[in-house]
């Protein structure tokens, strides 16, 4: 009796400590980035392109624009394909096809991003030149399994009775999927897309290989290599100058704030979707 209570308390305590540790890690990371980056963060920093080598000041407007273009193109490729893959596996594919597809997506999700980067390098950059588009392709590959797997989970939560109701009304299968299943799951599908964007926004390894040699100033041509926030953080933290280090922290703060905000919005959409499916 007493032993059971002791055991109970030990398990409860250790799991609580583990949970607090996880929260603490996030708080420490966010907190230290906030502390060290806050100082250099200003409107000027956000709206000015990176300074030339040797010059002081400068900001990350070129990196913000570049990141937006790279991630935007990646999302435009990965989100529709990911959603279609999810719709196919949950609504149309027989189990003997759906399960291997799910497994492949999990494996793809586990592929180190540097390998994805090398693959795209070999495919598009070798013998050619770096481009933001190549980086987008790599990020789309990283994003695809995240979007598809989340969408699968959410579509599987749509009550089968709704699909049944649509069938029983004589609504064709594709139309039921388009007008009943997908709208019901919409919140969760948006969640998956946002989590995918949040995941790749900070991705650095493919960028190093595919979009790291770029000109000064703000550029928008995706056939050229473009600056990006993760690469700016990497480059500035490698620099010997303390001012560059502060800039790296500030850029990191911008990136982490963006990812945090996306996660919070994603959660809100997910909650809405759940309410809808349970209500």
């Amino acid at each position: 009796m007493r032993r059971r209570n002791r055991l109970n308390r030990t398990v409860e305590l250790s799991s609580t400590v583990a949970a607090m540790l996880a929260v603490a890690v996030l708080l420490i990371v966010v907190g230290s980035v906030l502390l060290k980056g806050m100082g250099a963060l200003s409107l000027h920093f956000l709206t000015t392109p990176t300074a030339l080598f040797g010059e002081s000041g400068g900001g990350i407007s070129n990196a913000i624009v570049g990141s937006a273009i790279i991630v935007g193109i990646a999302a435009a490729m990965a989100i529709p394909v990911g959603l279609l893959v999810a719709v196919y596996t949950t609504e149309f594919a027989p189990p003997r096809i759906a399960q291997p597809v799910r497994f492949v997506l999990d494996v793809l999700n586990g592929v180190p991003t540097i390998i994805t980067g090398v693959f795209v390098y070999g495919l598009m950059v070798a013998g050619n030149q770096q481009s933001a588009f190549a980086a987008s392709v790599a990020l789309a590959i990283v994003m695809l399994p995240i979007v598809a797997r989340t969408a699968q989970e959410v579509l599987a939560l749509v009550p089968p009775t709704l699909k049944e109701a649509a069938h029983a009304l004589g609504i064709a299968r594709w139309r039921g999927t388009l007008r009943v299943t997908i709208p019901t799951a919409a919140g969760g599908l948006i969640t998956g897309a946002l989590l995918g964007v949040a995941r790749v926004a900070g991705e650095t390894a493919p960028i190093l290989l595919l979009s790291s040699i770029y000109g000064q100033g703000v550029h928008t041509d995706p056939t050229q290599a473009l600056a990006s926030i993760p690469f700016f953080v990497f480059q500035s933290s490698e620099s010997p100058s303390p001012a560059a280090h502060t800039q790296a922290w500030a850029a990191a703060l911008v990136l982490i704030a963006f990812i945090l905000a996306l996660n919070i919005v994603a959660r809100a959409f997910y909650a809405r979707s759940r309410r809808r499916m349970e209500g």
Partner: protein
Amino acid sequence: MRLIARQVEQRLPSTPTSEPRREPQGRDVGNVELKGLHAYYGSNHAVRGVSLGFDSGGATAIIGPSGCGKSTMVRCINRMHEEVAGARAEGEVLLDGLDLYNPAIDVVAVRRTVGMVFQRPNPFPTMSVIGNVTAGLRLTGAGKGEIEDRGREALVGAGLWDEVKDRLEAPGTGLSGGQQQRLCIARALAVEPEVLLMDEPCSALDPVATLRIEELIGELKERVTIVIVTHNMQQAARVADTTVFMLDGQLVEIGPTDKLFTNPDDERTEQYVTGKFG
């Protein structure tokens, strides 16, 4: 029926549909006949050779213990049975003489002619009250002007109009359970089926809501052939003109409801209706 007949004519121009097309005068449409119907889930033989008829202008209740195949049999009539993975059916299901399992027939057309209401109310959560009622029309490509009117008619028909006329644009899931079920009935009625299958439509409802649906069935059976699966023998006695008793996937007895409950021919029927098993 006209819809299906038209399809068969289009697809099989050489096949004589033997029967002259019947127009809905005096409602002699919506006669369902099962001939040697077998239904399987994989190797599980759920319905074992049932032959019987459901006549238009009446309500037929199907009773029997859990797992006797009553829901499965009903789901064969609108071919919802085949939606389950590994499920299949054999035999004939005739609607006004036309075999619904004829390969030339589009399953979607079957379901527009044979509507269904399920155990639990299942309004579409993303749609308003009126959106739910007209879902079948909108998503099967009916004309725009027609949609509104038929949606309204269906709500009146399902006895829901007075309760929802001021909140047609509110979400369908905001209604009470009983109202949601009548909304689902309205949704099924809006596509103007000739047969309405009801699979234990009151099992998730309270007694007052149940009574309301039973009254509705009494009104609706003038317009559509009603086949209702029920666990509740009192309900069968209240709503049905004809009652079918099933056991182990087989038809035991079919007859006028009062006869089946008071003076059944089969001993097993008597044992079941008197509560000796089930």
